[in-house]
């Protein structure tokens, strides 16, 4: 969803390209007239309904699988029972846009916003699928009667290409929105989308394949398996969200007890994730980093009395490490947060254990938490630019030994941006 100027700028070129394609397509379609309006209407409706039934995938990505499958099916449509339909690229883009926009209305109406970047991606992938398949149709579907495996194969290939384009476009938008390296974003997007995308591609191809024989029946009948998949994803995303919420809540145990300052864990985890993302930590590892950051002070619970102010940085290095060790042991007992425990265990270790030497086993995530934790101990909830910049300067004094210079640099960049906005 486009909510800030920065995000709009990130998706801007994509939206402009899609808008141009839509304008051209509508113009061409208006000139040629709409062939077989009922079939077009059926697909537009299908896409519209799919748009309403959108889901959130794990990782917070929005998706409308049914709408995407319908769009793909129309782009690949070789024929339709009882009609002599020839889908063109312009017609496909027109129908898909109309369907998506109509379906997006109810949501926009209740204030959930238009997913312009997603719509743009759908327009462009539809174009690609149609543009790849239509030229080869005379080869794989010569007399337009017999559907066979050659047609199915050509369609599948076109669908896969469209899926790849979709992932790359999504990665480009995300990389620029969140300042993550493009390569990490592509890996993240592919990992997150491969499941739902293959179900979408298969359904799109099936509807297109079955339409010449089954006609309108193909649409609802082949939507059922995809709906089932969609349902599974929704449940998974829900529990994933619940898990995240719970870890965040548990992080407050130390705050409520006065062991740490209010909001410390939350701020450290937010900042650590920002730093990690810019340093190219993958989404999967970012999640562990977030958990670790949220729970990084849990070892303090084993102390008989809270440390005044909760700032671990004023403790002796040995004490800091003991607390880290205790916390890691607690986290390890969950049996699932293994990586987070590893990160927490070494969060107090210095970047250079001896002058000029770097410990290669020290995880980047631990180094991030060390720096960000120290930063938050200095700044707290304060939003004063001077204080933030001074804190960074102080951390920069520690890059000879305590802190990873790369992490401090990244933090400095983020803080510089934050203070810029403040003016």
């Amino acid at each position, binding site marked *: 969803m486009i909510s800030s100027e920065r995000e709009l700028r990130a998706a801007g070129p994509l939206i402009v390209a899609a808008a141009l394609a839509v304008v051209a397509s509508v113009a061409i379609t208006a000139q040629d007239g709409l062939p077989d309006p009922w079939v077009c209407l059926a697909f537009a409706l299908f896409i519209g309904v799919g748009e309403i039934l959108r889901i959130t995938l794990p990782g917070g990505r929005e998706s409308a699988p049914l709408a995407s499958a319908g769009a793909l099916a129309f782009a690949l449509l070789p024929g339709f029972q009882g009609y002599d339909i020839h889908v063109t690229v312009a017609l496909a883009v027109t129908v898909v846009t109309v369907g998506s926009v109509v379906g997006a209305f109810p949501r926009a109406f209740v204030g959930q916003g238009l997913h312009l970047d997603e719509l743009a991606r759908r327009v462009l992938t539809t174009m690609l699928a149609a543009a790849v398949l239509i030229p080869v149709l005379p080869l794989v579907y010569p007399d337009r009667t017999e559907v066979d495996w050659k047609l199915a194969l050509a369609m599948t290939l076109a669908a896969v290409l469209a899926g790849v384009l979709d992932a790359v476009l999504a990665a480009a938008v995300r990389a620029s929105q969140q300042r993550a390296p493009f390569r990490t974003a592509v890996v993240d997007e592919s990992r997150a989308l491969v499941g739902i995308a*293959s179900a979408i591609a298969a359904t799109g191809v099936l509807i297109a394949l079955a339409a010449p024989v089954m006609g309108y029946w193909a649409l609802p009948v082949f939507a059922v398996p995809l709906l089932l998949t969609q349902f599974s994803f929704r449940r998974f995303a829900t529990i994933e969200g619940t898990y995240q919420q719970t870890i965040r809540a548990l992080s407050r145990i130390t705050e409520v007890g006065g062991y740490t300052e209010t909001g410390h864990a939350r701020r450290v985890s937010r900042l650590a994730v920002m730093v990690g993302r810019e340093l190219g930590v993958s989404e999967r590892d970012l999640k562990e980093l977030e958990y670790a950051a949220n729970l990084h002070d849990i070892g303090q619970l084993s102390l008989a009395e809270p440390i005044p102010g909760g700032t671990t940085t004023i403790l002796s290095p040995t004490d800091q490490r003991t607390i880290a060790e205790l916390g890691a042991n607690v986290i390890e007992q969950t049996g699932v947060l293994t990586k987070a425990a590893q990160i927490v265990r070494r969060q107090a270790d210095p970047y250079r254990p001896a002058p000029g030497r770097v410990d290669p086993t020290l995880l980047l995530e631990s180094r991030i938490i060390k720096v960000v934790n120290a930063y938050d101990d200095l700044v707290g909830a304060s939003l004063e630019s001077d204080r933030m910049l001074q804190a960074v300067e102080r951390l920069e004094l520690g890059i000879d030994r305590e802190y990873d210079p790369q992490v401090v640099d990244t933090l400095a960049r983020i803080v510089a941006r934050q203070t810029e906005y403040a003016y």
Partner: protein
Amino acid sequence: MRELPIAARLYIAAVIVLGALVIALGAAQMTRWSAVLALAALVVLGEGLSTLLARSVNRNEGVGISISMPVTIASVLLLGPVGAPLVTACMALAPIRTPWFKRAFNGAMGALSAYAAGWVYLAVGGELLLGGEVEFSLGHVLLPMIAAALVFEAVNGLLMVSVIALAEKVSPWRVWIGTMAESAVPLFIYSTFGLLLAVVWAQIGPLSALLVLAPLMVARWVFAQFAARQEAYEATIRSLIQAVETKDAYTRGHSVRVSRASVLIGRRSGLREDRVASLRYAGMLHDVGKLSVPTSVLQKSGRLTDDEYSAIQLHPLLGRDITKDLEFLGEAIEGIHYHHERIDGRGYPEGRKGSEIPEFARIIAVADAFDSMTTTRSYRGARSVADAIDELRRCKGSQFDPVMVEALVAALDTDGWDAADTFPTELPTPSVALPSLGSDDDDPTAADHLAQARDSDEVAEDELAELARVLAEPEAER
């Protein structure tokens, strides 16, 4: 096989022989071997994958998503009673670790069910989709397909239920209720995917398997991930709570047991299942606020100062503060907030009375006291379940909601109770003094003395009254 009753052995042998007969009959008449092989490969692959995925899946999660069922139904629609048994019997070849006779029985069972389904499909006017020039009309294919799917399930279920009933010597009805009943409807739904597969297979051949089964496989995979995630989720809460419970060795495992007892009470008083789930979390997290109380206070032996006692009394509020953002907990948050209230209004933090106290809190209060009494504490041994029940009954109407007390008693009657742990054996090396009664306000004996002390200012000589006096002081000052 040896350990099975003789009747079961004979039955298994008979089914295997019959299945082999049907397979041989089919093989003799079969002409479309390529389709049979392709579908059979799919069955083997599907079964293998299912087991692979199921390994990580919680077994209570029901049948999950079947992949071999759609393939079986598709083979019925494509090949009829001749070919379908050949395809379905290949289930026995799936790479699963089971004894040979179980595999053979499963294969034979599949073959017989598929034969019956195929025969019914043709008998009610269905047309084989493979080879014939089928005039495509869904109504024409759909109804016979439904009949075939139902017959397949019925025959398969009958053979399965009777073998389990014979082997374990229980009534077939109970077996059906226990194992098959809840999977009947989902299995039927999956069988309709067989129709999709058959329709597309008739046109484009084996490639259809990839297309039709892909969404199913993805759904199956996500489902497995979901189940794994759910387990991980519960494990995380449980162990984080338990790990931090080590602050007080005597309360180890307390939260998990309170959660269990709360669920018993909740079920018995007829709460909806989703509320019971919420109650389970409430029980687990009811003392989460104690984790925020300094360890020095929790583990202090001897008298508590006013401040220290207030710190302990704060724990329901702290618990609410920690959990208040967890939307999914819903009612559970109230349960955590008010679990130290008393029916007579002399509890804390707000002194709510009777029905002003949320239901979850009234349940947890009983469960909490029950577990606290049946566990060893530093100043006394664990009481027996019967003693604890007597004590709960004595305090009902004053400290506890009588309905919840009786619900717990009734539930303990039917479900029993793993009488809580014995004296904790592996205590963490106590660098600080062992926890004393000073912190134990879950025990109704202590709590009741506390309330009495508040009323009469009596100063008793024994330990409990001493505690009560200490605890009562902050009250008196208000």
